[in-house]
Protein backbone atom coordinates (compact mmCIF):
# COMPACT_ATOMS: atom_id res chain seq x y z
CA UNK A 1 0.00 0.00 0.00
CA UNK A 2 2.78 2.40 0.93
CA UNK A 3 4.72 1.76 -2.25
CA UNK A 4 1.49 2.17 -4.23
CA UNK A 5 0.93 5.61 -2.75
CA UNK A 6 4.56 6.50 -3.36
CA UNK A 7 4.18 5.56 -7.01
CA UNK A 8 1.03 7.65 -7.34
CA UNK A 9 2.85 10.54 -5.73
CA UNK A 10 5.71 10.13 -8.17
CA UNK A 11 3.37 10.42 -11.16
CA UNK A 12 1.71 13.53 -9.71
CA UNK A 13 5.07 15.05 -8.87
CA UNK A 14 6.32 14.44 -12.40
CA UNK A 15 3.30 16.28 -13.83
CA UNK A 16 3.62 19.19 -11.43
CA UNK A 17 7.36 19.58 -12.08
CA UNK A 18 6.91 19.43 -15.84
CA UNK A 19 4.10 21.95 -15.64
CA UNK A 20 6.08 24.25 -13.37
CA UNK A 21 8.91 24.44 -15.91
CA UNK A 22 6.74 25.58 -18.82
CA UNK A 23 3.43 26.63 -17.24
CA UNK A 24 1.97 26.07 -20.73
CA UNK A 25 -1.05 24.08 -19.74
CA UNK A 26 -2.13 26.14 -16.75
CA UNK A 27 -1.75 29.47 -18.47
CA UNK A 28 -3.67 28.23 -21.51
CA UNK A 29 -6.51 26.94 -19.32
CA UNK A 30 -6.60 30.14 -17.33
CA UNK A 31 -6.62 32.57 -20.24
CA UNK A 32 -9.22 30.40 -21.97
CA UNK A 33 -11.42 30.39 -18.86
CA UNK A 34 -11.28 34.17 -18.59
CA UNK A 35 -12.14 34.48 -22.28
CA UNK A 36 -15.16 32.22 -21.82
CA UNK A 37 -16.41 34.44 -19.01
CA UNK A 38 -15.86 37.48 -21.23
CA UNK A 39 -17.91 35.86 -24.00
CA UNK A 40 -20.70 34.97 -21.60
CA UNK A 41 -20.66 38.52 -20.31
CA UNK A 42 -21.61 39.82 -23.75
CA UNK A 43 -23.65 36.86 -24.95
CA UNK A 44 -25.92 36.82 -21.90
CA UNK A 45 -25.72 40.50 -20.91
CA UNK A 46 -24.66 39.55 -17.41
CA UNK A 47 -25.74 42.41 -15.22
CA UNK A 48 -26.31 42.29 -11.49
CA UNK A 49 -29.94 41.18 -11.87
CA UNK A 50 -29.26 38.45 -14.44
CA UNK A 51 -26.20 37.00 -12.75
CA UNK A 52 -28.24 36.00 -9.70
CA UNK A 53 -29.69 33.03 -11.54
CA UNK A 54 -27.03 32.56 -14.23
CA UNK A 55 -23.79 32.64 -12.27
CA UNK A 56 -23.70 28.94 -11.42
CA UNK A 57 -24.26 27.98 -15.05
CA UNK A 58 -21.68 30.40 -16.40
CA UNK A 59 -19.07 29.27 -13.89
CA UNK A 60 -19.56 25.58 -14.58
CA UNK A 61 -19.55 26.03 -18.36
CA UNK A 62 -16.26 27.88 -17.92
CA UNK A 63 -14.73 25.15 -15.75
CA UNK A 64 -15.87 22.40 -18.10
CA UNK A 65 -14.46 24.05 -21.22
CA UNK A 66 -11.18 24.93 -19.56
CA UNK A 67 -11.02 21.43 -18.10
CA UNK A 68 -11.32 19.84 -21.53
CA UNK A 69 -8.32 21.81 -22.77
CA UNK A 70 -6.29 20.74 -19.78
CA UNK A 71 -7.24 17.06 -20.06
CA UNK A 72 -6.48 16.86 -23.76
CA UNK A 73 -3.14 18.57 -23.33
CA UNK A 74 -2.05 16.61 -20.30
CA UNK A 75 -2.49 13.24 -22.04
CA UNK A 76 -1.31 14.37 -25.49
CA UNK A 77 2.06 15.33 -23.99
CA UNK A 78 2.44 11.80 -22.60
CA UNK A 79 1.76 10.24 -25.96
CA UNK A 80 3.81 12.56 -28.18
CA UNK A 81 7.06 12.13 -26.33
CA UNK A 82 6.61 8.41 -25.66
CA UNK A 83 6.32 9.11 -21.96
CA UNK A 84 3.23 6.94 -21.61
CA UNK A 85 5.10 3.87 -22.89
CA UNK A 86 7.83 4.58 -20.37
CA UNK A 87 5.35 4.73 -17.52
CA UNK A 88 3.70 1.51 -18.69
CA UNK A 89 7.07 -0.24 -18.47
CA UNK A 90 7.46 0.72 -14.83
CA UNK A 91 6.99 -2.27 -12.50
CA UNK A 92 3.91 -0.88 -10.78
CA UNK A 93 0.20 -1.54 -11.01
CA UNK A 94 -1.26 0.31 -13.97
CA UNK A 95 -3.98 1.96 -11.95
CA UNK A 96 -1.15 3.99 -10.40
CA UNK A 97 -0.88 5.84 -13.69
CA UNK A 98 -4.61 6.47 -13.74
CA UNK A 99 -4.78 7.84 -10.21
CA UNK A 100 -1.58 9.82 -10.65
CA UNK A 101 -2.76 11.45 -13.85
CA UNK A 102 -6.29 12.00 -12.50
CA UNK A 103 -5.08 13.68 -9.33
CA UNK A 104 -2.64 15.76 -11.35
CA UNK A 105 -5.43 16.88 -13.65
CA UNK A 106 -7.64 17.60 -10.65
CA UNK A 107 -4.95 19.80 -9.15
CA UNK A 108 -4.67 21.78 -12.41
CA UNK A 109 -8.41 22.19 -12.63
CA UNK A 110 -8.67 23.30 -9.01
CA UNK A 111 -5.83 25.79 -9.51
CA UNK A 112 -7.69 27.34 -12.41
CA UNK A 113 -10.87 27.44 -10.34
CA UNK A 114 -9.03 29.04 -7.41
CA UNK A 115 -7.99 31.87 -9.69
CA UNK A 116 -11.23 32.20 -11.68
CA UNK A 117 -13.59 32.26 -8.68
CA UNK A 118 -12.19 35.41 -7.00
CA UNK A 119 -12.05 37.15 -10.37
CA UNK A 120 -15.67 36.26 -11.03
CA UNK A 121 -16.66 37.26 -7.52
CA UNK A 122 -14.84 40.58 -7.99
CA UNK A 123 -16.54 41.28 -11.32
CA UNK A 124 -20.09 40.36 -10.35
CA UNK A 125 -20.19 40.53 -6.56
CA UNK A 126 -21.14 36.88 -6.17
CA UNK A 127 -20.61 35.34 -2.71
CA UNK A 128 -18.54 32.35 -3.82
CA UNK A 129 -16.54 31.96 -0.64
CA UNK A 130 -18.78 29.68 1.36
CA UNK A 131 -17.70 26.20 2.40
CA UNK A 132 -20.75 24.56 0.80
CA UNK A 133 -20.14 26.17 -2.57
CA UNK A 134 -16.46 25.27 -2.52
CA UNK A 135 -17.38 21.67 -1.65
CA UNK A 136 -19.61 21.53 -4.73
CA UNK A 137 -16.75 22.84 -6.87
CA UNK A 138 -14.49 20.11 -5.48
CA UNK A 139 -17.02 17.27 -5.92
CA UNK A 140 -17.99 18.38 -9.42
CA UNK A 141 -14.36 18.64 -10.50
CA UNK A 142 -13.57 15.18 -9.13
CA UNK A 143 -16.37 13.58 -11.15
CA UNK A 144 -15.43 15.46 -14.28
CA UNK A 145 -11.73 14.66 -14.03
CA UNK A 146 -12.31 10.98 -13.11
CA UNK A 147 -14.15 10.31 -16.37
CA UNK A 148 -12.13 12.86 -18.32
CA UNK A 149 -8.75 11.32 -17.52
CA UNK A 150 -9.86 7.88 -18.63
CA UNK A 151 -11.43 9.14 -21.86
CA UNK A 152 -8.45 11.39 -22.61
CA UNK A 153 -6.14 8.38 -22.29
CA UNK A 154 -8.38 6.63 -24.81
CA UNK A 155 -8.72 9.57 -27.18
CA UNK A 156 -4.98 10.22 -27.60
CA UNK A 157 -4.68 6.77 -29.20
CA UNK A 158 -7.37 7.57 -31.76
CA UNK A 159 -7.02 9.12 -35.20
CA UNK A 160 -9.59 11.88 -34.64
CA UNK A 161 -8.19 12.81 -31.26
CA UNK A 162 -8.40 16.60 -31.53
CA UNK A 163 -12.16 16.66 -31.79
CA UNK A 164 -13.26 13.53 -30.00
CA UNK A 165 -12.71 14.27 -26.30
CA UNK A 166 -15.54 16.79 -25.76
CA UNK A 167 -17.92 14.70 -27.84
CA UNK A 168 -17.30 11.65 -25.68
CA UNK A 169 -16.96 13.46 -22.39
CA UNK A 170 -19.83 15.97 -22.32
CA UNK A 171 -22.79 13.57 -22.60
CA UNK A 172 -21.29 11.22 -20.00
CA UNK A 173 -20.62 13.97 -17.49
CA UNK A 174 -23.96 15.72 -17.87
CA UNK A 175 -25.24 14.33 -14.53
CA UNK A 176 -22.25 15.99 -12.85
CA UNK A 177 -22.88 19.25 -14.64
CA UNK A 178 -26.61 19.28 -13.84
CA UNK A 179 -26.07 18.40 -10.19
CA UNK A 180 -23.14 20.80 -9.77
CA UNK A 181 -25.01 23.70 -11.36
CA UNK A 182 -28.12 23.06 -9.28
CA UNK A 183 -26.17 22.70 -6.04
CA UNK A 184 -24.02 25.78 -6.71
CA UNK A 185 -27.10 27.77 -7.57
CA UNK A 186 -28.66 26.64 -4.32
CA UNK A 187 -25.69 27.84 -2.28
CA UNK A 188 -25.43 31.14 -4.15
CA UNK A 189 -29.11 31.87 -3.61
CA UNK A 190 -28.96 30.82 0.05
CA UNK A 191 -31.45 27.98 -0.35
CA UNK A 192 -31.79 25.84 2.83
CA UNK A 193 -29.38 22.91 2.92
CA UNK A 194 -32.17 20.31 2.86
CA UNK A 195 -33.08 21.29 -0.70
CA UNK A 196 -29.48 21.01 -1.86
CA UNK A 197 -28.64 17.75 -0.09
CA UNK A 198 -30.09 15.57 -2.86
CA UNK A 199 -27.82 17.18 -5.46
CA UNK A 200 -24.80 16.76 -3.21
CA UNK A 201 -25.64 13.08 -2.78
CA UNK A 202 -25.94 12.69 -6.52
CA UNK A 203 -22.50 14.24 -6.98
CA UNK A 204 -20.95 11.94 -4.37
CA UNK A 205 -22.58 8.85 -5.88
CA UNK A 206 -21.43 9.82 -9.37
CA UNK A 207 -17.87 10.41 -8.17
CA UNK A 208 -17.74 7.04 -6.42
CA UNK A 209 -19.25 5.02 -9.27
CA UNK A 210 -17.22 6.55 -12.04
CA UNK A 211 -13.93 6.56 -10.19
CA UNK A 212 -14.40 2.83 -9.51
CA UNK A 213 -15.43 1.98 -13.07
CA UNK A 214 -12.51 3.98 -14.48
CA UNK A 215 -10.15 2.23 -12.08
CA UNK A 216 -11.48 -1.15 -13.23
CA UNK A 217 -11.24 -0.57 -16.97
CA UNK A 218 -8.06 1.52 -17.13
CA UNK A 219 -5.95 -1.57 -17.81
CA UNK A 220 -7.86 -2.16 -21.03
CA UNK A 221 -7.32 1.42 -22.19
CA UNK A 222 -3.54 1.24 -22.10
CA UNK A 223 -3.16 -2.41 -23.12
CA UNK A 224 -1.07 -2.90 -26.24
Amino acid at each position, binding site marked *: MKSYLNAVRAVIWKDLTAEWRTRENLSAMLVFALLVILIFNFALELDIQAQESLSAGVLWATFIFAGTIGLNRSMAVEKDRGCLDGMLLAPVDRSVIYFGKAIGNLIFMLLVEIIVLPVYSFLYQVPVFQPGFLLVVLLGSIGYVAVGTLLAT*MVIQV*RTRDILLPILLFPLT*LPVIIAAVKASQGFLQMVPLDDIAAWLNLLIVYDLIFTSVSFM*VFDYVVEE
Partner: protein
Amino acid sequence: MTKKPLMLLILDGLSGIMVLVAAGLVFFYAPVEVMMGMVQKVFYFHVATAWVGMLGFMVAAIAGILYLRKGTQLWDITGYAAVEISVIFFLTAIILGSIWARPIWNTWWTWEPRLTTAAIVELIYAAYLLLRKGVDDPERRARFSAIYAIFGFFSVPITFISIRLLRTIHPIVIGNAEAAASGGFNMDSPMKLTFFFSLAAFSVFFADLLWHRVRLGKLQGEVEQLRIDS
Protein backbone atom coordinates in the same frame (compact mmCIF):
# COMPACT_ATOMS: atom_id res chain seq x y z
CA MET B 1 -20.77 -17.75 -47.92
CA THR B 2 -22.82 -19.31 -45.16
CA LYS B 3 -26.45 -20.08 -45.81
CA LYS B 4 -29.09 -18.12 -43.93
CA PRO B 5 -30.07 -20.21 -40.88
CA LEU B 6 -33.62 -21.58 -40.81
CA MET B 7 -34.22 -20.17 -37.33
CA LEU B 8 -33.45 -16.69 -38.63
CA LEU B 9 -35.99 -17.12 -41.43
CA ILE B 10 -38.61 -18.18 -38.91
CA LEU B 11 -37.74 -15.22 -36.71
CA ASP B 12 -38.10 -12.90 -39.73
CA GLY B 13 -41.61 -14.19 -40.34
CA LEU B 14 -42.56 -14.13 -36.68
CA SER B 15 -41.40 -10.55 -36.09
CA GLY B 16 -43.15 -9.38 -39.27
CA ILE B 17 -46.44 -10.98 -38.21
CA MET B 18 -46.17 -9.77 -34.62
CA VAL B 19 -45.53 -6.15 -35.60
CA LEU B 20 -48.48 -6.30 -38.01
CA VAL B 21 -50.74 -7.81 -35.36
CA ALA B 22 -49.58 -5.18 -32.88
CA ALA B 23 -50.49 -2.44 -35.36
CA GLY B 24 -53.86 -4.13 -35.89
CA LEU B 25 -54.51 -4.26 -32.15
CA VAL B 26 -53.56 -0.61 -31.79
CA PHE B 27 -55.95 0.56 -34.50
CA PHE B 28 -58.88 -1.82 -34.21
CA TYR B 29 -58.85 -3.43 -30.78
CA ALA B 30 -57.63 -0.91 -28.24
CA PRO B 31 -60.35 1.59 -27.30
CA VAL B 32 -59.98 5.29 -27.99
CA GLU B 33 -58.87 7.08 -24.86
CA VAL B 34 -61.60 9.43 -23.58
CA MET B 35 -59.56 12.50 -22.76
CA MET B 36 -56.91 12.45 -25.48
CA GLY B 37 -58.65 10.76 -28.37
CA MET B 38 -56.89 9.11 -31.29
CA VAL B 39 -53.45 10.62 -30.69
CA GLN B 40 -53.08 8.51 -27.55
CA LYS B 41 -52.62 5.45 -29.79
CA VAL B 42 -49.10 6.62 -30.57
CA PHE B 43 -48.34 5.65 -26.97
CA TYR B 44 -48.16 1.91 -27.71
CA PHE B 45 -45.33 2.24 -30.22
CA HIS B 46 -43.75 5.15 -28.39
CA VAL B 47 -43.11 3.03 -25.32
CA ALA B 48 -42.25 -0.07 -27.36
CA THR B 49 -39.57 1.70 -29.41
CA ALA B 50 -38.13 3.39 -26.32
CA TRP B 51 -38.03 -0.01 -24.62
CA VAL B 52 -36.19 -1.56 -27.54
CA GLY B 53 -33.77 1.37 -27.48
CA MET B 54 -32.94 0.80 -23.83
CA LEU B 55 -32.77 -2.95 -24.36
CA GLY B 56 -30.18 -2.48 -27.10
CA PHE B 57 -28.06 -0.17 -24.96
CA MET B 58 -28.15 -2.79 -22.23
CA VAL B 59 -27.13 -5.52 -24.70
CA ALA B 60 -24.25 -3.28 -25.82
CA ALA B 61 -23.02 -2.82 -22.24
CA ILE B 62 -23.21 -6.56 -21.51
CA ALA B 63 -21.48 -7.35 -24.80
CA GLY B 64 -18.84 -4.77 -23.81
CA ILE B 65 -18.17 -6.50 -20.50
CA LEU B 66 -18.02 -9.90 -22.21
CA TYR B 67 -15.65 -8.56 -24.85
CA LEU B 68 -13.27 -7.19 -22.23
CA ARG B 69 -13.31 -10.51 -20.39
CA LYS B 70 -13.15 -12.92 -23.32
CA GLY B 71 -11.77 -10.88 -26.20
CA THR B 72 -13.84 -12.66 -28.83
CA GLN B 73 -14.73 -10.60 -31.86
CA LEU B 74 -18.33 -11.79 -31.83
CA TRP B 75 -19.05 -9.66 -28.73
CA ASP B 76 -17.64 -6.60 -30.42
CA ILE B 77 -19.89 -7.12 -33.43
CA THR B 78 -22.88 -7.72 -31.14
CA GLY B 79 -22.27 -4.52 -29.20
CA TYR B 80 -21.88 -2.45 -32.34
CA ALA B 81 -25.01 -4.01 -33.88
CA ALA B 82 -27.08 -3.37 -30.76
CA VAL B 83 -26.06 0.29 -30.57
CA GLU B 84 -26.68 0.87 -34.27
CA ILE B 85 -30.22 -0.53 -34.07
CA SER B 86 -31.03 1.13 -30.78
CA VAL B 87 -29.96 4.58 -31.90
CA ILE B 88 -32.57 4.38 -34.66
CA PHE B 89 -35.27 2.99 -32.37
CA PHE B 90 -34.60 5.53 -29.67
CA LEU B 91 -34.77 8.35 -32.20
CA THR B 92 -38.09 6.93 -33.37
CA ALA B 93 -39.32 6.91 -29.77
CA ILE B 94 -38.35 10.57 -29.35
CA ILE B 95 -40.13 11.53 -32.58
CA LEU B 96 -43.26 9.57 -31.63
CA GLY B 97 -43.18 11.20 -28.21
CA SER B 98 -43.06 14.59 -29.91
CA ILE B 99 -46.12 13.71 -31.96
CA TRP B 100 -47.93 12.77 -28.78
CA ALA B 101 -46.76 15.84 -26.90
CA ARG B 102 -47.86 18.38 -29.50
CA PRO B 103 -51.63 18.12 -28.85
CA ILE B 104 -51.41 17.09 -25.18
CA TRP B 105 -48.73 19.41 -23.79
CA ASN B 106 -49.20 21.93 -26.60
CA THR B 107 -45.54 21.83 -27.56
CA TRP B 108 -43.28 19.58 -29.66
CA TRP B 109 -40.53 19.61 -27.12
CA THR B 110 -40.07 20.70 -23.55
CA TRP B 111 -36.90 20.63 -21.47
CA GLU B 112 -38.58 18.31 -19.10
CA PRO B 113 -36.04 16.02 -17.39
CA ARG B 114 -37.13 12.77 -19.00
CA LEU B 115 -37.03 14.25 -22.48
CA THR B 116 -33.69 15.79 -21.67
CA THR B 117 -32.43 12.41 -20.51
CA ALA B 118 -33.61 10.83 -23.76
CA ALA B 119 -31.73 13.46 -25.75
CA ILE B 120 -28.57 12.87 -23.71
CA VAL B 121 -28.80 9.10 -24.15
CA GLU B 122 -29.14 9.54 -27.90
CA LEU B 123 -26.06 11.79 -27.90
CA ILE B 124 -24.01 9.31 -25.83
CA TYR B 125 -24.57 6.60 -28.41
CA ALA B 126 -24.02 8.99 -31.33
CA ALA B 127 -20.64 9.66 -29.70
CA TYR B 128 -20.12 5.89 -29.52
CA LEU B 129 -20.57 5.63 -33.29
CA LEU B 130 -18.17 8.55 -33.83
CA LEU B 131 -15.61 6.89 -31.59
CA ARG B 132 -15.78 3.70 -33.65
CA LYS B 133 -15.24 5.68 -36.84
CA GLY B 134 -12.14 7.31 -35.39
CA VAL B 135 -10.17 4.14 -34.58
CA ASP B 136 -8.52 2.19 -37.39
CA ASP B 137 -7.07 -0.78 -35.55
CA PRO B 138 -9.95 -3.29 -35.12
CA GLU B 139 -8.73 -4.70 -31.82
CA ARG B 140 -8.32 -1.27 -30.24
CA ARG B 141 -11.65 -0.15 -31.69
CA ALA B 142 -13.35 -3.10 -30.04
CA ARG B 143 -11.72 -2.40 -26.67
CA PHE B 144 -12.49 1.32 -26.65
CA SER B 145 -16.08 0.97 -27.77
CA ALA B 146 -16.67 -1.77 -25.18
CA ILE B 147 -15.45 0.59 -22.47
CA TYR B 148 -17.53 3.46 -23.75
CA ALA B 149 -20.67 1.30 -23.94
CA ILE B 150 -20.17 0.32 -20.29
CA PHE B 151 -19.67 3.94 -19.24
CA GLY B 152 -22.69 5.05 -21.21
CA PHE B 153 -24.90 2.48 -19.60
CA PHE B 154 -23.73 3.42 -16.11
CA SER B 155 -24.46 7.08 -16.67
CA VAL B 156 -28.00 6.54 -17.98
CA PRO B 157 -29.61 5.60 -14.63
CA ILE B 158 -27.79 8.43 -12.86
CA THR B 159 -29.08 10.89 -15.42
CA PHE B 160 -32.49 9.31 -14.95
CA ILE B 161 -32.38 9.84 -11.18
CA SER B 162 -32.15 13.56 -11.77
CA ILE B 163 -35.75 13.29 -13.00
CA ARG B 164 -36.91 12.44 -9.53
CA LEU B 165 -35.15 15.50 -8.21
CA LEU B 166 -36.59 17.99 -10.66
CA ARG B 167 -40.30 18.47 -11.05
CA THR B 168 -41.68 16.51 -14.00
CA ILE B 169 -44.75 16.69 -16.21
CA HIS B 170 -44.06 13.41 -17.98
CA PRO B 171 -46.87 10.97 -17.10
CA ILE B 172 -46.06 7.78 -15.21
CA VAL B 173 -48.69 5.71 -16.93
CA ILE B 174 -48.83 2.42 -15.12
CA GLY B 175 -50.32 2.36 -11.64
CA ASN B 176 -50.55 6.04 -10.92
CA ALA B 177 -53.90 7.79 -10.74
CA GLU B 178 -52.46 11.18 -9.79
CA ALA B 179 -50.71 11.51 -13.10
CA ALA B 180 -54.01 12.06 -14.92
CA ALA B 181 -53.62 15.82 -14.67
CA SER B 182 -50.47 15.80 -16.80
CA GLY B 183 -51.76 13.51 -19.54
CA GLY B 184 -51.49 10.19 -17.77
CA PHE B 185 -54.36 7.71 -17.82
CA ASN B 186 -55.31 4.36 -16.40
CA MET B 187 -55.25 1.51 -18.86
CA ASP B 188 -58.18 -0.89 -19.09
CA SER B 189 -57.49 -4.49 -20.07
CA PRO B 190 -57.72 -4.21 -23.90
CA MET B 191 -55.27 -1.32 -23.62
CA LYS B 192 -52.98 -3.35 -21.40
CA LEU B 193 -53.09 -6.30 -23.80
CA THR B 194 -52.26 -4.07 -26.75
CA PHE B 195 -49.50 -2.41 -24.77
CA PHE B 196 -47.77 -5.58 -23.68
CA PHE B 197 -48.22 -7.21 -27.07
CA SER B 198 -46.55 -4.19 -28.71
CA LEU B 199 -43.66 -4.53 -26.29
CA ALA B 200 -43.28 -8.22 -27.11
CA ALA B 201 -43.60 -7.61 -30.86
CA PHE B 202 -40.89 -4.97 -30.86
CA SER B 203 -38.62 -7.09 -28.69
CA VAL B 204 -38.85 -9.95 -31.19
CA PHE B 205 -38.31 -7.48 -34.02
CA PHE B 206 -35.21 -6.23 -32.22
CA ALA B 207 -33.83 -9.75 -31.77
CA ASP B 208 -34.38 -10.37 -35.47
CA LEU B 209 -32.60 -7.18 -36.53
CA LEU B 210 -29.77 -7.85 -34.11
CA TRP B 211 -29.22 -11.33 -35.52
CA HIS B 212 -29.17 -9.95 -39.07
CA ARG B 213 -26.75 -7.21 -38.14
CA VAL B 214 -24.40 -9.58 -36.29
CA ARG B 215 -24.45 -11.92 -39.27
CA LEU B 216 -23.65 -8.99 -41.56
CA GLY B 217 -20.78 -8.00 -39.27
CA LYS B 218 -19.34 -11.51 -39.43
CA LEU B 219 -19.59 -11.59 -43.23
CA GLN B 220 -17.90 -8.19 -43.34
CA GLY B 221 -15.06 -9.63 -41.28
CA GLU B 222 -14.75 -12.57 -43.67
CA VAL B 223 -14.60 -10.27 -46.71
CA GLU B 224 -11.91 -8.21 -45.02
CA GLN B 225 -9.95 -11.38 -44.29
CA LEU B 226 -10.28 -12.57 -47.90
CA ARG B 227 -9.03 -9.21 -49.14
CA ILE B 228 -5.97 -9.44 -46.89
CA ASP B 229 -5.28 -13.05 -47.93
CA SER B 230 -5.53 -12.49 -51.67
